[in-house]
Structure formats: structure tokens, C-alpha cells
């Protein structure tokens, strides 16, 4: 199956921290259809934290989300209503998948919803794939950067607004298009 016959949803979460007790504060999603990012269809929402769970101030500071905005935001259940159909539509595209996957699974769990087990592509893994190939050709070349912003800079993509769920998701989608072409992958199988 050609890689671009699939729909991909790039997703990024901003969270209050990295531990399992931290919370989702915002979510951004951008689809890729027929190999083109359809930015107009993006989804972005802040998420109101569940009462009783601790909020880390460091995390809040990192992404400039202020508590007042969060209080007015829809609760996790509502956000998940919007995330779910997109998530189920195609392949989920994440940069450094384990962290966001963990948060998503826990969110489904909290709300007692069955985990939809989406197919996932991780741009960090695509970078690793490219790295393997590069090592084969040039054994002593420098390792490729793995961070989203660093990797984009390395490959010549423009700087983006970091730590914002929507623009990080878009940044991931753009990086994916570039990596796909560098890998010369024609099919989805060649990407996984």
C-alpha cells in the first residue's frame, strides 16, 4: 500500500510534567492526506485538568499556559470526544511516541473507554532508521539529533514555535514528510 494512500494524524500533547500522575493540558492534531498536510483541518484544544490531581508549575511555565485559561477549557472527556474519531481514522504520528502514548492510554483509562490501539509512527524512530542507513554509508558520521527542533534544524526545516501542542504537531508532520522522502519509502511497510 502506497504510503500516501493513508491518512496520518500528527499529534502532540502538552502536559504538566512527565510522570504518570501529570496531566494533559493541551492537545494539537494535524492530518496528512494524500501526502499533503491539511492544516485547515487542524484540531487544537486546551484541556481542563481533573480536580484533585497535582499541577506542576514548571510544566505550566514551559508552555505558557496560564491556569485561568485551563479553568475555562473543556474537560478531558470532551477533548477525548474530539481526539477519538481522528485517532481512529488513520495512523497516529508522534515525535517520541512513548510519552504521548502513555498519556493517551491513561486518559482513555481514566474515562473508562477502551483503548483503540491506533497504528503509530514515531518520527524519532524514522530518524533512527535514517541513522542506521547513514552509519552503513559513513561509519564515522555524527549522530543525527533526535529532538524535534534540533532535528528540524538539521534537515533545514524552518524554526517553529515550540512547546505548543498545535505547532509541535505541525512540526512533526513536516518532519515526517521530509524523513519519508529521505528514506525513499514508497509504502507504509517501509516506514514501520
Amino acid at each position: 500500500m502506497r504510503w500516501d494512500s493513508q491518512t496520518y494524524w500528527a499529534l502532540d500533547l502538552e502536559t504538566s510534567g512527565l510522570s504518570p500522575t501529570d496531566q494533559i493540558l493541551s492537545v494539537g492534531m494535524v492530518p496528512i492526506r494524500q501526502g499533503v498536510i491539511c492544516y485547515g483541518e487542524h484540531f487544537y484544544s486546551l484541556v481542563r485538568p481533573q480536580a484533585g490531581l497535582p499541577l506542576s508549575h514548571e510544566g505550566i511555565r514551559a508552555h505558557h499556559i496560564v491556569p485561568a485559561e485551563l479553568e475555562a477549557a473543556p474537560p478531558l472527556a470532551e477533548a477525548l470526544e474530539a481526539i477519538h474519531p481522528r485517532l481512529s481514522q488513520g495512523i497516529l504520528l508522534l515525535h517520541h511516541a512513548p510519552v504521548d502514548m502513555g498519556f493517551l492510554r491513561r486518559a482513555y483509562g481514566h474515562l473508562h473507554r477502551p483503548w483503540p490501539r491506533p497504528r503509530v509512527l514515531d518520527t524519532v524512530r524514522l530518524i533512527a532508521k535514517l541513522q542506521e542507513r547513514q552509519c552503513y554509508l559513513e561509519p564515522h558520521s555524527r549522530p543525527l539529533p533526535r529532538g524535534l527542533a534540533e532535528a528540524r534544524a538539521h534537515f533545514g526545516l524552518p524554526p517553529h514555535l515550540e512547546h505548543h501542542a498545535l505547532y509541535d504537531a505541525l512540526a512533526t508532520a513536516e518532519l515526517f514528510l521530509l524523513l519519508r522522502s529521505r528514506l525513499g519509502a514508497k509504502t507504509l511497510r517501509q516506514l514501520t
Partner: protein
Amino acid sequence: MGNTLTPLEFIRQTPPFDRLPPEALAAVERGLEISFFPKGTRVLAHTGPPSEHLYLIRKGAARLLREGREVLLLEEGDCFGYPSLLAQDAPSFDVVAEEDLLVYRWEQKIFRGLLAYPEFAQFFSRDLAERLRLVSKALHHAPSTLNLDLSMPVGELVSRPPVFVARSASIGQAAQIMREQRISSLLVEGEPLGILTDRDLRNRVLAEGRGPETPLAEVMSAPAKTLNAETPLFEALAFMVSQGIHHLPVTRDGRIVGVITDTVLMRQQTRSPLYLLRRLERTRDPADLQGYREELTGVVESLMAGGLGAPSIGRSVSSLNDQLVRVLLELAEARLGPPPTPYAWIVFGSEGRMEQTLLTDQDNALIYQDDLPEARPYFARLAEFVVQGLLQAGFPPCPGGYMATRWHKPLAEWERLFGHWIQQPNPQELLEAQIFFDFRPVHGNLSLQSLEQLVAHSGQHRIFLAQMARSALQFRPPLGFFRRIREEEGGVDLKKGGIAPIVSLARVYALEALSPARSTLERLEAAARAGKLSAEGAETLAEAFNFLTRLRLREQLGALRRGEAPGNKVSLEALSALERRHLKEAFVLLREMQEALGQRFQTDLLG
């Protein structure tokens, strides 16, 4: 500006999207698609299917190729694909990713919707000339010092209906009407239209010792010079300056609707060309000319702020400089006595073409009729007086040394000189002499018919034209690898890289067309009329010329405000993305036109 831009931030600051109102940007964001093309991809193919999108480069570069030849390099912020999209034709170019290309794009439906905004739509005119015109308009950043909008129709300044007097009236009766009506001029009934002004009463009546019974018809000016009420104010100003008139009857549908006086125009602005003209007319001593340069700069600034193009400004400035020369020559004649033989004072180069805006140099010469023994010393002193006066007024001496102090010769010698240039053209000589072919008489009674004839027929000499063409190719637009603009130390030289090549090119084509035109714009027009140059080519060159000269003038005025010497260089950094883009387009176009000129005259075959 931060360098981390969200898509919408990037789009909003990129022309022509920067002209869209906020409500339109929502549609832009909704319709935004982002695509990636690795280096080497053919994004659009010449003869391929029509483009389905408007593309905007977010990152990377693409080459536009026509028949395998690179036409243009597109960079971040450049659009492509629209001519094909608009016409639903095959793309006229191949578009190939020169580097990895991240592009924003919109479907035709969205693009068509945005075309409803005229400011946005204008940008996509297929015509480069049209787009250059647009950018030239956008160059009006200078702070406005004018209360008058110089583009308004002159008729709007008419404040009262015209007052007429019978042609049979006497001067005394006319003066009474002027007193009663409190006006400084009076129109005279009958054909052709006559006009009588305060000045006439003073200069032609009182000063001549005539009495109030003098018939009006003997002292009025007729036919009076008139302009249509729809004429833009700046043209009317230029007309009044060039004609040396202070009262201008204005017509609508063939009827006089009123008279505009220069006081109406000057009341609001001392930085008007008319004000400076008045000052020149009152000059009695070259020492009075101190400060002329600064005042002229003020006039240029205000004309620029009024939205005039460099060519119109050049015409006004040249009229003033001509008047300055006339005043100096009259003072010189008063001092040295009448000339022993008729003469003509000529200017050439940018003054001859009426394209000089700031006082950057003087190119002048003197031609006299008979080679009498007393003629040479007389004209040497005359020239010395005028050139010193011009220096007083603030003209720097000409670095090439083309000044009448050295260049005063009898007509026969000038005829031999032009004959030599035309019949035995020598590349090195022509390189310097080509500006003589822009000569224009400013003062004096000597007829230059014979020189005019020589120049007018010079285009019949193929080798002469070929050598002129070769001189015209001496300077090339500063385009480097992949047609990027090459910047030398201090910036891009607009004169060497653009203005001078266009001037030379227009000169060659106009000479070939046997046209007597002098200004670059008129020459291009004449060449197009004679079929030597395509109408489209001529128009595009004209717009490129307007764009470059205006850009240079803006930079020069900026330099003067900062207390620096005005030069010809502009730093790319100081230009907006749109200006940079059009500068590149102008250079690319010019390079193509130069190649065509070279082929036409086979300059490569010349030794």
C-alpha cells in the same frame, strides 16, 4: 520579528497576503495545505497539466526554467503556479526544487475567492510591468510634507469663476476690473484666448512707458496656455514651471472654468517647484544662489512624498535647472556684453534626458556659430561665469570633465565631432561620447538643426549602432549564480547594474528608430512604435526604469537626511521582501533585453 513563525504569522507578513484584511485570513488558514518536495523534484512541468494550486515557498528555493534555461530563482516568500492556475493553461515554466522545498499551497477555489480583494489580486497580474508599477507605488514611504495631494485634478483648486474682459478694452479698464475683483489676472474674450496679468501691467506697460489708454490686445499674451481641469496637479505644476507661467487657465469640455495662480499653490508650501522658480527669477547675482541645492532637495522630497515617479520629478528638476542656467547666462551676458556670434548652451547626460533629480553632476557644453577670433575668449569667460555659478548653486563639477569651460567649440567643429563619432565609431570614444547623443539646448539663439539632423540620421549607420550597442552592454545587472542578486561592498549599485544599462539600451533603440526623443521613457516608446522593440518589452523596461530610479532616489534622500553623500548603492537588507523580489525581476528582465540587443547588433562579432 521572532524567527519562529506560526504558519499564519508567516503568511500575514508575506506579500501579497499582507494586503488581505483580517477576515480574509481565516479563509487563508482554513484552505492552507503544506507540502514537501525534496531537492530535484519537478513541482510543475512546462506542457504538463495546469497548476491546481497557488504555491508559496515557506523554506527552500526553486528554479523557474523555460526550455531548460533558468529564468528565475524563487526563494522563501515567493509565489508560483498562479499564471497557469489563472489561465488554466499548461505552466509556462518548469518549476524544479533547487533545495528541499517546504511549500504552502491553496486550491484554486480558495485562490479565486481571495482575488476578490483588489490589492491582493493586482499582485497576480500576469504582467511584470504591472507588478513593478505596484511596487513603485509602495515605495512612497517618505513622510509627507505636502498639504496638497499632487495627484488630484488641477480643476479642484479653482476657487472662483473666470473673469473676462472685452478684447477691445483698454489697459486702464482692465486694471480697474482687476482691482474691483481683486484678481491678479484677467482673461480676454475672443479667439484665441488671451490673458493679462499683474506682471504684464508692470513689465509691458509701466516699464515700457505706456499709458492706460493702450489697447489691451497689444500687451496681453495670446494664445494663453491652458490645461484640462482633469490634469493631475503635479503635471500642471511641471507645465507651469516649464512654460515659466504663473497663471494657468483651466478648461473643462472646452470651456474655461477658472484660473489657477501659483500663489494658490505656493501658499501651502514653500517646497514647491514654483516657489524655487520664483526665487530663480529674482536672482541678480550668482551669490544669491547659495542654498539652491538644499532647496532643490526639499522640492524633490516633497514631490516624492506627493507620490510622483522619478521621471516626473526629473522633468520638474530639469526645468528648474534650465531656468538656473538661463538666469546665469543672462547675468553673464549683462556683464560681458552681447555675444559676438549666436550660441547655444547645451546640456547632456541625465540633464539632457531630463532625468536628473538631485544635483549629482553637471554635463554641459557650448556651441557657437562663427569661429571669430574674439569668439573663443568670450565664450570661455561666459562658460567660466556660468560654471562657477552652478558650483555656487551646489552642482558638483562633473568628474568626467564635460563642462562648457572645456567644451566650447564652433558649430562646424561640433559637426565634425558628431560626424566622426557616427562614421568612424571607436568603442572607447563612444563609451564616453554616448551621453552627447542626449544633448538638449537650454539657452541661446543658435539653431542646432544641423546637429539634430546628424543625430537623427545616425541610426542609418549600422556599425555606429553596433558600437553603441556594445557600449550599452558595458554594464551588466549584478546577477550571480542562479540569478541571485550579487551585492558588492556597500550594496547593489542601482546605477551601474540597472539604470545606466536601461538608459543606454533605450538610446540605441531610439537611434535605430531615427527618433529625436531624449528621455529614456520617450525613447522606449518611440522604439516600440517603430517596431524595433516589442511593446511589451518597452513597457516592462519603462516600469523597471521607474522602479529603479525611484528606489535610488528614495535611498539618496535618506542618505541626505542622515547627512551622508547620496550614492547609487542600496543595501538588500534595507529592502522589503517584495522590493528585493522585484529588483531581481527587473535585473533578470534587463539581462534578457541586453542579450537580445547583443544578438540584434551581433556585438560579439565586433573586434
